[in-house]
């Protein structure tokens, strides 16, 4: 078990290095000199050269890469070429906002999907199961941004129950924070929940067909109890995989949702930086998203070990 864990940590580190190289290389080959962009087309060659030297852009790529990684690892990514502000605190603020969105969205998705998926599987031959199935199918078909716009139209503009957009840090005004969080989280969570529901349904259906569930019933367990005691843990294995993939799509989905609800999250920062050609910030944000995805995958691998004793190996 320890050996497996160490291996997985090694894999995580290697993939972090590889992805950082990829992100850096991709930004490096992009046409457009950051210094030129920062100063505008009218700036003189010497001014541009001076700025290049100031940013360290005249150094070899390897040196640039290393100092970038060093900045990330020490939580001091330096200053932006464009806004000349410290990137670190900005990233931390924005990350916090996005984590609230994604975290709450994921929790809502699970709260919706777990009972719905199980119910749909257990009743898959009955009308109630089919109705739920059709509902979730509709949910899958709706993109998050469309759901967001619809929710704004109905609950903010139409009924006026909730604010249409904006963001307030929870420490500043917890009530307003929650009010503003409801609609974006709903639009993220419902769509993800619909997708997750379908995966949970099929995972539970697979488990319902397993021999060990028949064994459980042959022991005298009623169907629902057999499913809860013997099925759910086994059904969790494929669902956890999907959950990890979904977290990645949620991060991307948050980019769009932050735009719709005017939320200053990582996604907004990314889009702003792209349009400002603030390449160093783009690079940092992309790397943070990549790290988040890799970290989630690492956690999922670790969760597998907890769920399925067969993966632990060598314990007999």
């Amino acid at each position, binding site marked *: 078990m320890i050996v497996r864990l160490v291996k997985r940590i090694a894999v995580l580190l290697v993939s972090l290095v590889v992805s950082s190289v990829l992100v850096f290389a991709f930004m490096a080959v992009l046409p457009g000199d950051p210094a030129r962009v920062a100063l505008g087309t009218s700036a003189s060659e010497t001014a541009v050269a001076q700025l290049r030297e100031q940013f360290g852009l005249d150094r070899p790529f390897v040196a640039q890469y290393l100092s970038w990684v060093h900045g990330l690892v020490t939580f001091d990514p330096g200053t932006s070429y464009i806004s000349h502000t410290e990137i670190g605190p900005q990233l931390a603020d924005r990350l916090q906002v996005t984590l609230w969105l994604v975290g709450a969205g994921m929790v809502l998705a699970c709260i919706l999907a777990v009972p719905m998926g199980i119910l749909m599987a257990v009743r898959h031959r009955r009308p109630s199961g089919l109705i739920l199935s059709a509902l979730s199918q509709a949910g899958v078909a709706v993109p998050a941004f469309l759901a967001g716009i619809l929710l704004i139209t109905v609950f903010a503009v139409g009924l006026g129950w909730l604010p249409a957009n904006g963001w307030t840090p929870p420490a500043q005004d917890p009530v307003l924070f929650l009010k503003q969080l409801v609609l974006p989280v709903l639009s993220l969570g419902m769509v993800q929940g619909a997708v997750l529901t379908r995966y949970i349904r099929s995972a539970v259906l697979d488990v319902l067909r*397993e021999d*060990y569930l028949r064994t459980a019933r042959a022991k005298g367990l009623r169907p629902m109890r057999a499913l809860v005691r013997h099925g759910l843990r086994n059904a969790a294995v494929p669902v956890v995989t999907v959950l990890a993939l979904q977290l990645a799509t949620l991060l991307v989905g948050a980019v769009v949702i932050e735009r719709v609800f005017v939320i200053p999250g990582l996604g907004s920062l990314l889009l702003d930086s792209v349009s400002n050609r603030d390449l160093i910030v783009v690079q940092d944000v992309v790397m943070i998203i990549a790290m988040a995805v890799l970290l989630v995958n690492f956690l999922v691998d670790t969760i597998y070990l907890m769920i399925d004793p067969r993966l632990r190996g060598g314990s007999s």
Partner: protein
Amino acid sequence: MTPAPDTAPATASASGQGSPDRPDDVLTVRNLGVTVGGRKLVEDVDFTIRAGERVGLIGESGSGKSLTALSVMGLLPDGLRATGSVRLAGVGHDLVDADEARMSRVRGKEIAMVFQEPMTALNPTMKVGRQIAEVLLVHRTRPDRASARAAAVDLLAQVGLPDPAAAVDAYPHQFSGGQRQRVVLAIALANDPALLVCDEPTTALDVTVQARVLDLIVRGVQDRRSAMLFITHDLAVVATACERVMVMYGGRVVESGPVQEVFTRPRHRYTRGLIGASDLTAVDDRGRLATIPGSVPPAGRFPAGCVFRNRCAHATEACATRPDWVPTGPDSGYACFHPVAESGVRGTAVPTNQEAGRG
């Protein structure tokens, strides 16, 4: 109608609605059918198993023997429906169409089952000790977890698992197929069931461990005076484990009787073919082993009349109507218009379990 092999045909179905016919009858199956959509997969199956009796149910794949067993357990797959009557001694209701609440009290306590595939029959994410203890706790035959765990260790010792005290804390994947089947057997025997249903319990095992597991099953039911319904397509296994045998084909019982009698003097043409196909010493003039011509039709596509007539060399026009059950003794009979003659039959030796010697 195919009457009960072991009871007077005329009274068989009449008594089917009530309690078992005789005091020592454990399982009474009357007029059992299994249908899906409009198709009949099992039809008019009647039999009785007495206390401590070990009965084999043989036939090719698709003959309906597993469905018969699952009907008794009330565990038919979704969409399949059982009709008729299945009564168990000491249980006040019919097992066919009983609701889940009632059936769950019977399963694992009065009737237990050993399945064919030990590799998938156990929950891979639960320690085997807990899987055994569960069947004791569900039926409250042990008051608490600690005593159920102690009982699980004891049961694992009974089924001959090495180091049972450590085995309770192992997961199924840490055992071989044979060992897992022992665990499944321990679960099945835990509550001393009145009837043990075995669905090809040794088929998936290595030949070297088949005989040992078979021996454990037989000893387990003997020790508990449990009755056993043993499903297999292996005649040698039936000859080793059972006293009585029923031959199923096309969803019907076509012949039944004491093992010795049926295997040495089969009357039904299908039984004869099955025994011939199991004889690995007899070859035809081209040096080939005997087989039954043709193959088992898909479920519900058996011919009308005698279900075997499209594969039978002796079939005539008479076989287009359904043959009546011909009783040949208190526990035996067959349903065939052209039975193998009673005298002058080449006595086929009872197949013996060839693995027994190696075990």
